[in-house]
């Protein structure tokens, strides 16, 4: 059984504060450093790279829109999670820029985590083929695994290095951390069907071109208008769309949420793939129901057995949707775990294994892990 991690928090954006926190965690005897920091800390890249390369311990983690400590979300600051065991870290970098055999690349770079069954995944949210990577990784590592994780990066949608490793900051990368203890996880989103189903009749990766043979934006706009009496234009797209995600219906009746982030007036671009021929629904949310649903998931996780580390990846768009009420959701989770300190990040997309075992990229969801 793992011992409780060392958790050091600083609200400061200074690298020195981060450095002190890392040192403090190291002095406390931890064996692996997991960093969760805010993008808005705006660390100098050279300084942070030096700090990382000087570390005597393995370092992992990412920069996120917000970080979470207990029931609170912070837009600035850093959390140093000092794990009391040695985690194996596999970094996969330069994913977009090289033509290579991805399965072979994964196999060659995963040797140190090949025997693990429990993983934390931190993915650069702006690497467009994250889902292809997680599919190939699952093909390689096999079933019977548990995964939690999320997408690092900024809400301004400007790609930048946002993943921490001993060689410095990485971008266009995915980091997989092998945890030598079982992770229990719980996944929820709380979104409900508003309208649909619609058949995805044309799509390419993240881009949904048509639903029911109608340009997606047109159908989406009309459906929102009809079902929620809300108008939608290209100009206010992001403001309105955050309330009305799409949901891909699975064969088991589960919804895989897809967050539309932009449109050209014809297609919709989502965070994550929307396969052609899939059935999608227009979703709506109610903060109270969502908080309730999250609390139930946290309760289920607690009932399954409390670990020493409680790690949360919560979608930043939930915060954008709920506003201040997001902290109610965070408290709803923390309140279930009296003996553990909740740490985590508000991420751009979440990663977890589904009920059937495969690794999925989630949107607007909550992924809680306990180990």
């Amino acid at each position, binding site marked *: 059984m793992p011992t409780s991690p060392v958790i050091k928090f600083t609200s400061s954006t200074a690298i020195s504060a981060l450095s002190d926190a890392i040192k403090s965690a190291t002095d406390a005897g931890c064996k692996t450093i997991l960093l969760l920091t805010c993008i808005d800390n705006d660390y100098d890249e050279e300084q942070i790279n030096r700090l990382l390369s000087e570390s005597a311990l393995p370092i992992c983690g990412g920069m996120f829109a917000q970080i979470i400590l207990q029931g609170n979300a912070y837009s600035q600051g850093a959390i140093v999670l000092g794990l009391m065991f040695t985690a194996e870290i596999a970094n996969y970098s330069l994913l977009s820029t090289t033509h290579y055999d991805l399965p072979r690349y994964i196999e060659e770079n995963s040797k140190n985590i090949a025997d693990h069954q429990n993983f934390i995944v931190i993915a650069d949210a702006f690497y467009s083929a994250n889902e292809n990577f997680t*599919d190939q990784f699952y*093909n390689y590592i*096999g*079933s019977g695994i548990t995964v939690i994780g999320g997408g690092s990066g900024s809400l301004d949608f400007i790609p930048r290095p946002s993943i921490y490793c001993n060689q410095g900051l990485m971008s266009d990368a995915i980091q997989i951390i092998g945890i030598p203890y079982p992770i229990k996880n719980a996944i929820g989103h709380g979104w409900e069907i508003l309208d649909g189903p619609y058949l995805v009749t044309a799509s390419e990766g993240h881009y949904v071109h048509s639903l029911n043979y109608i340009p997606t934006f047109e159908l989406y706009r009309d459906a929102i208008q009809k079902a929620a009496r809300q108008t939608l234009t290209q100009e206010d797209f992001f403001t309105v769309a955050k309330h009305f995600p799409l949901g891909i219906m699975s064969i088991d009746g589960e919804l895989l949420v897809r967050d539309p982030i932009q449109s050209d007036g014809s297609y919709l671009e989502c965070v994550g793939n929307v396969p052609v*021929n899939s059935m999608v629904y227009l979703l709506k949310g109610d903060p109270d129901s969502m908080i309730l649903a999250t609390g139930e998931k946290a309760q289920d996780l607690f009932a399954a057995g409390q670990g020493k580390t409680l790690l949360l990846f919560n979608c930043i768009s939930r915060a954008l949707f709920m506003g201040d009420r997001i902290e109610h959701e965070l408290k709803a989770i923390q309140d279930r775990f009296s003996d553990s300190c909740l740490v985590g990040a508000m991420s751009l997309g979440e990663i977890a294994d589904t009920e059937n*075992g495969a690794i999925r990229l989630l949107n607007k969801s909550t992924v809680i892990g306990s180990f």
Partner: protein
Amino acid sequence: MNTAMHIMSVQHQLLLGISNSPDMREIAQQFLQVCRSRLEPTSCHIFLFQDAGHNPVYEQALAPGGNLVHYMSLPHKKNGQPWSINQKLATMVNKFFHASAVNSMIKIEEDLYHCFKIGHFGVLIIDRKKELEQPIQESLTPVLQKLATSCIASIDHQKLIQEIKTRKEVEEKIRYQASHDYLTGLCNREEMQRRLGDAITSCEKNNNIGGLLLIDLMNFKNINDLMGHHVGDKVLRQIAIRLKEIVQCDYTVARFGGDEFIILLAQLACDHNKVTAMINIMMNRVIAAIEEPVEVQEGTFSVSCFIGYETFCDNSKTVNDIIKNADIAMYEAIKRGGNKGIPYESKMSDALNKRLNYTAQIENALKNNQFELYYQPQFDYLQHMIGAEALLRWNHPVYGYESPAVYIPIAEESELIVEIGAFVLSQACKEIKLLEKMPLPDSFQQISINISAKQLAKNDFADTVIRTIEQSNITASRLKLEITESIMMGDLGQSITHLEKLYRYGVECAIDDFGTGYSSLAYLKRFPASLLKIDRAFICDIDKDPSNHAIAKMIIELARSLKMEVIAEGVETQQELDCLIKLGCYQYQGYYFSRPLTFNKLVERIDTSLAKLPLLVK
């Protein structure tokens, strides 16, 4: 919530997920990916009927028995263990496959394995934690039918590709075998000739010189004879490997015949001197490589070689000319016995032509009775004539009396020697008949004739001799056959049979030139010979040469212990005679007593000896 549209969308996407690729792996991979995407399994698998080479098949699946074999899984492992070696899964799949149902759901621990048959030769397994709803399962029926059809098309395609590949391989193998020697893997004669033709053309075109080395192995036949052909083959293979190592890819090595090899050196250089130097280097390397002892399981063997070579620079010489010339040079090298590798010179052809011409002349001589027999008398220590050896003489119409040393070796290369032997036998018997009609000294016993190896090898040799004796109506004991010691090194079985038959008939046998061959004493015991003839080489200066003295003494004692008589050949001096008497040899032949005589002269000599001993006339 699985509405009809949802079900149709799943079915549609799965149908679209069946690739048109002819590659079975691609079909399976793509289909399983789509299954992963739409059916959300924990894992999915395909098992197929496969042949011994792990290639999917379908026709064989119709035969009873036989099991499916794991083909592909996504993901590849469970809990770190590859699905490909999961026996539980394989057993479950095959149990389902042999049952009659086309689909089934089997629960193992927490997993639900949804099994679907792919035609009559495969199974698709969708492993989930939750059961696939029945409408979804039903909707897979046309999908699996299409998948089966695509699989069959792919298998047929692969089979066709394999057949084409196999045919090409077979054609290539046939082409290779047609142009290569099966034992050594070297080019064969035909291929070498073809390459030589190309080399001639290239040399003419590029204005440079090529060379052809013909290598003949010496002492190789003994290996085959003594150890067997299987050992000889091993030795040949090793030599072939050595030659290939010397030549490498630059030039061509071929096995030309039994123990003959050819090295073709195409486009060596433009300068003759340089070419000669290069060829000399190559020959030295070849000789060194061949003379290095060959180690095989049965022992270590040494062979040597002689090499003849010819050069070419244009098409004035044909392929056959070049090979023939190299062959002539090689034979010349063997004949001379000195330098092991020599170039062809045109005078060698002259000599050979003369030789061939000689053969025709020998034939002619036989037809035109140009041969005659001379007789060299044999004496005992009391100077009594005890017999005579018949010696062949040829009075050539142009060259006069030719030495037998010239034409006998030529005749031995062909069946002419048999014809010559038949003449000698016949003529000797006729002349014995004439001798029998006249008074002969008591001491006079037989006329000896020389028998060649080829005569003795004939199946009807003994019968021929008996028939000739009978036709000549002579006493069998008046004829003696002389066999050289070297014949005893060959196949003795038949020879001994012939001689034993003749011995019983009354014809005795002598071993000629004893001491010069490599006969085994065991063979000597088996031979029905009554006389050993000590070769002249050991008689020469026997009184002065201790080695000859010792050897002659040994032969005399050997003959005595084998109860054989002994006669010394080539006695030329009194001293030699005295020495031989002291050693216990009492019969002699040589210039000291008489040169070879014509038959008439022999008769005169007999008359003279009778005149000296009137009381001893028979």
